[in-house]
């Protein structure tokens, strides 16, 4: 039995396989979340709270991306699904899980000065941007993918890097506590737009390469209905279009929030004055 999905080189079958590492991770995450949520005020917890729903959606994304069948297909058969997995684990899930955390959890971090200082440094927008894009470039480098994907530990390392990179990337945008008052809505929007541009390099590399770049997927037992090259091109397109859609959704949400806050400001000033 495998604890994490990896490239096995055996023909694909639709026979269900358990990946105990994924379940253990999700169980740990859920237990930790329940403990954190217990300390939160009632408005931020319970089944009606948007934060609970955001956490649930984030955990679901992780489970769907890492467990059978998507996890197994992405690890050893299709580069396009590997890209879907990246978008779920490295982009969507971190944003949703951060949105799911109660404000009190962020505030509690301030009581741990060392961790708070480290997080503050790591999640500086410039550093977060560079780190995330370094992680994306490193984890999509053919030598890294082909070297790590055949082992469970290697495959886990790639998933962990994606998730850590995504968390750092979204932190400055999602964190509800005003850690950086000068990182305003226009700057947050600019930060996300800049990232839509940064993904162009790996997109172009995958989409316009005339030969398959990953041995893992080129030499994998074939899946009916898609050639190796089409699979790789689809991976590149998914990275650009799928990633772009996620970022532009976030940009739209930020813009709406910014607009609403701006609209509400005169009323608040009137009440105060």
């Amino acid at each position: 039995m495998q604890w994490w999905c990896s490239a096995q080189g055996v023909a694909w079958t639709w026979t269900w396989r358990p990946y105990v590492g994924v379940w253990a991770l999700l169980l740990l995450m859920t237990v930790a979340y329940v403990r954190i949520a217990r300390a939160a005020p009632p408005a931020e917890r319970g089944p009606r709270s948007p934060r609970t729903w955001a956490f649930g959606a984030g955990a679901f994304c992780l489970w769907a991306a890492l467990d059978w069948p998507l996890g197994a297909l992405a690890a050893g058969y299709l580069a396009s699904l590997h890209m879907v997995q990246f978008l779920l684990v490295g982009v969507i899930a971190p944003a949703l899980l951060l949105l799911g955390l109660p404000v009190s959890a962020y505030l509690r971090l301030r009581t741990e000065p060392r961790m708070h200082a480290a997080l503050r440094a790591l999640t500086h927008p410039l550093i977060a941007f560079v780190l995330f894009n370094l992680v994306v470039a490193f984890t999509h480098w053919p030598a890294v993918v082909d070297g790590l994907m055949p082992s469970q530990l290697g495959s886990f390392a790639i998933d962990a890097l994606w998730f850590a990179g995504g968390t750092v990337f979204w932190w400055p945008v999602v964190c509800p506590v005003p850690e950086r008052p000068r990182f305003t809505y226009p700057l947050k929007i600019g930060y996300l737009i800049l990232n839509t541009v940064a993904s162009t390099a790996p997109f172009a590399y995958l989409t316009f390469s005339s030969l398959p770049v990953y041995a893992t997927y080129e030499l994998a037992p074939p899946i009916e209905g898609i050639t190796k090259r089409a699979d790789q091109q689809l991976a590149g397109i998914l990275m650009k279009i799928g990633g772009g859609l996620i970022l532009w959704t976030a940009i739209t949400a930020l813009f709406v929030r910014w607009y609403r806050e701006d609209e509400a400001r005169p009323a608040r000033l009137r009440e105060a004055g």
Partner: protein
Amino acid sequence: MHCVLAGRTLPFLFAAAALAGCGRGVEAGGEFRGEVLAEPIPRPDFILTDTSGEPFDFRAETDGHVTLLFFGYTHCPDVCPIHMGNIAAVLGDVGWRVRQEIKVVFVTTDPARDTPARIRSWLDRFDASFIGLRGSPAEVERIQRGMGLAPSVIQPLPEGGPADYLVGHAAQVVAFGADGPARVVYPFGTRQADWAHDLPRLVAVGP
């Protein structure tokens, strides 16, 4: 000569190719990326039946052409479709001049299940010009032994019926030059980049 049996050894081969490959599935062998043989394999002389039911004289029909000969079977879950798919993909890119100099011949190692129609339809998924041949197990074994390849072996599946089995077979594509003998073989792990590098060179060597 070094022979590799596909089948149960594939997961190991796959991991080794992926780990060692890093963009290359085959060790460089001077001019070629395939495995250059110390002793060339003479072009074999045999007649089998093609997918239209006609006798196919291998030596006469492929004379003067670079010929990629592969022994496999259409139910193969991995090595055979990967080799055929990669060769077909690269042949689509090499240009008409190179393309017309190359013949691809697939000999089934599973004649019990591989009917001529099945071989034809399977090969057509890759390239309609690929030649499919069928003979008795004894004939095919004789040809393989003559070329120094390991003969194929039926590997029953533990949970399957009598028609559910794998066939362990030599996993390399043997590349005969237009001048006759084969000097290079392409084991499992050969990538499209390797084929794209070697096919024009194989043609350029000439008769």
